[in-house]
């Protein structure tokens, strides 16, 4: 199995430890992932701003970089959603179609491709789970409160298989954090307010460690946590599953 690791542009620059944890976690699960050095970005920041046309060269570059792999694994549901959903703007050559179906979010890759449903190890902390909307509603990684009162999802199951880990019950289980890409600066007031409300839902309900599958939401929430000096640590789920300790 030839597996490539795609590290989202902002993770590469600001959160290298998330890329490292992803690589090491995959290795523990028996997958030696390669990191093609020519990779850049999935193009989502442009496309969500309305500039899909300017993003096409980035899409093509992504396909060229990853076309020879069996799987592309990404520690971000949002980037995966973009590749799967919005690369429809490219001519649908066999290469494009292949990359669109072989690109997986890390958690989906672990549970669906590797069929790993439980993780060894312990993380004796109260953990608040924040799924990105693209992961949750776009890739259906978890039940949605719009549909059912039952809380379930792949990452929830993986995390709770760790010894001592307790998940926070939030007042609003799956409300958006307000990051939204360029939204975070173009609608700065609302974005900041949404992030504030999200962070305080976690604080109120006892979250010690805030985690999720998308570093973009977490970057935004961490920015608020640090600005307000809230007693919450922010870690990507890959770091926890890879055995992070506080």
């Amino acid at each position, binding site marked *: 199995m030839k597996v490539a690791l795609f*590290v989202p*542009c902002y993770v*590469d*620059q*600001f*959160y*290298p430890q*998330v*890329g*490292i944890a992803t*690589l090491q976690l995959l290795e523990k699960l028996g997958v*030696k992932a390669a*990191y093609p*050095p020519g990779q*850049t*970005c999935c*193009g989502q*920041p*442009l*496309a*969500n*701003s*309305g*500039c*899909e*046309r*300017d993003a096409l*060269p*980035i899409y*093509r*570059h992504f396909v060229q970089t990853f076309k020879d792999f069996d799987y592309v694994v990404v520690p971000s549901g949002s980037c995966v959603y973009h590749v799967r959903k919005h690369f429809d703007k490219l001519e649908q050559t066999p290469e494009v179609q292949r990359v669109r179906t072989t690109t997986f979010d890390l958690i989906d890759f672990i549970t669906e491709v590797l069929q790993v449903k439980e993780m060894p190890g312990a993380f004796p902390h109260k953990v608040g789970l924040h799924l990105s*909307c*693209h992961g949750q*509603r776009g890739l259906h990684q978890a039940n*949605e409160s*719009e*549909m059912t009162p039952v809380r379930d999802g792949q990452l929830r199951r993986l995390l709770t298989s760790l010894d001592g880990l307790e998940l926070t019950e939030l007042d*609003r289980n799956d409300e*958006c954090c*307000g990051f*939204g890409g*360029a*939204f975070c*600066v*173009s*609608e*700065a*007031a*609302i974005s*900041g*307010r*949404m*992030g*504030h409300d999200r962070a305080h839902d976690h604080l109120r309900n006892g979250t010690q460690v805030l985690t999720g599958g998308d570093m973009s939401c977490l970057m*935004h929430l*961490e*920015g*608020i946590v*640090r*600005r307000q000096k809230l007693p919450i640590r922010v870690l990507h789920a890959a770091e926890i599953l890879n055995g992070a300790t506080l």
Partner: protein
Amino acid sequence: MSYLTHASRAEAFNLDHERTSWHDETLWFVRQKRDKAVYAVPEFQELRSLASAIKEHTLSRLDHYLAQFEAAALANGVQVHWAADAAEHNAIVLDIVRKRGATKVVKSKSMLTEECHLNPYLISHGIDVIDTDLGERIIQLRDEPPSHLVLPAIHLKKEDVGDTFHQHLGTEKGLTDPQQLTEAARQHLRAKFLAGEVALTGVNFAIAETGSVVVCTNEGNADLGVSLAPVHVASMGIEKLIPRLADLGVFTRLLARSATGQPVTTYTSHYTQPAEGREMHVIIVDNGRTQQLGRPDFRASLKCIRCGACMNTCPVYRRSGGHSYDFTVPGPIGSILSPNIDLKKHSTLPFASTLCGSCTDVCPVKIDIHVQLYKWRQIIAEANHLPAAKKWGMKFMGRLLASPNAFKISGKLARTGLRLLPHGLTHNQTANAWAIARELPEPPKQSFREWYQQQAPA
């Protein structure tokens, strides 16, 4: 002409932190009521699919169903009028009112007449028009547009209503008891109902098979108005049609649950023919709808049954208020309807969203709202309505991110800059909107890429 952006209005709304919390929590409460009602119906998702299919079918044969509806309504003795736009609609209403020599009009809730700005038109022609829905009456007294499809005065607190009623209805100053305020409104409206010469209503559903129109209210004000006045004028958009009476139950089961969490609206009134010696008119209005029908990517927006669930769930709407959208229909659905009417004026609305998709998931007729928001963004950018900084920034990023070397070098420069420059400069709130509410990430010395290259080859 330049327009205020949604962001600037939203920022003003957010200046009052406590009131924003109150607005958000009030609407979240409605969303939770909706959730409870939805969870209690095991076949709710099937109902959504069915409703969506019925609406899609109807829209695909709209010409047929409109003609069928007209024929059935005419056979029932209803007078049917066709209006291409708001001006035609308003002129038809005025003509009906004048032919009766009437001056007193009572109106139940109708977003279409809001869209057509009927009230100011009638008033400027000497007609006294009174909104009889309580929320609508409150905002009519305040001379404000509705801020929500179903809850038009949801932006107001009971203290605001007390002030308004004190000023206009002469209630005691400082009165905030909802029951007493409602009673004052009832007494005030009772006289208006009794004096009404023409009753205007909206239409929730128009049934092609029977030629009937169906109006759903919780206050019974439509029934009261229509029963008392000798003339009933019902205004409907062309998209209100459903083929058969048998289809109606699908929608009535969805509408109230999605809107307020009620199993059904208190009143579901069918109007089929005028009573002896009375008149019933139906005005069928286009006003931009066929243009939207002609846009394959946005046609599905016409499936909307105006329940407002997308507003109640929208984290942006809840924290920015309906008036921040500056369009008759606010919230996510308004943000996909408004660009069809005026792309430039409403060009910031499709960006007033994180694309979280919750609107799509609550929509009882499965409109792909967040997908359409994304698609409008592309059209707005192509039409050159993006702010210049964003447009050129995106072009620059496009070049940068298609080139691994340029990406590598600029990333390193940015990280080094962030590390070395003083906090006050990197977090300047005028230059960096990120820093208004948040810290920037702490820049690491190495990118992942640099770390990876240092590892011993396998």
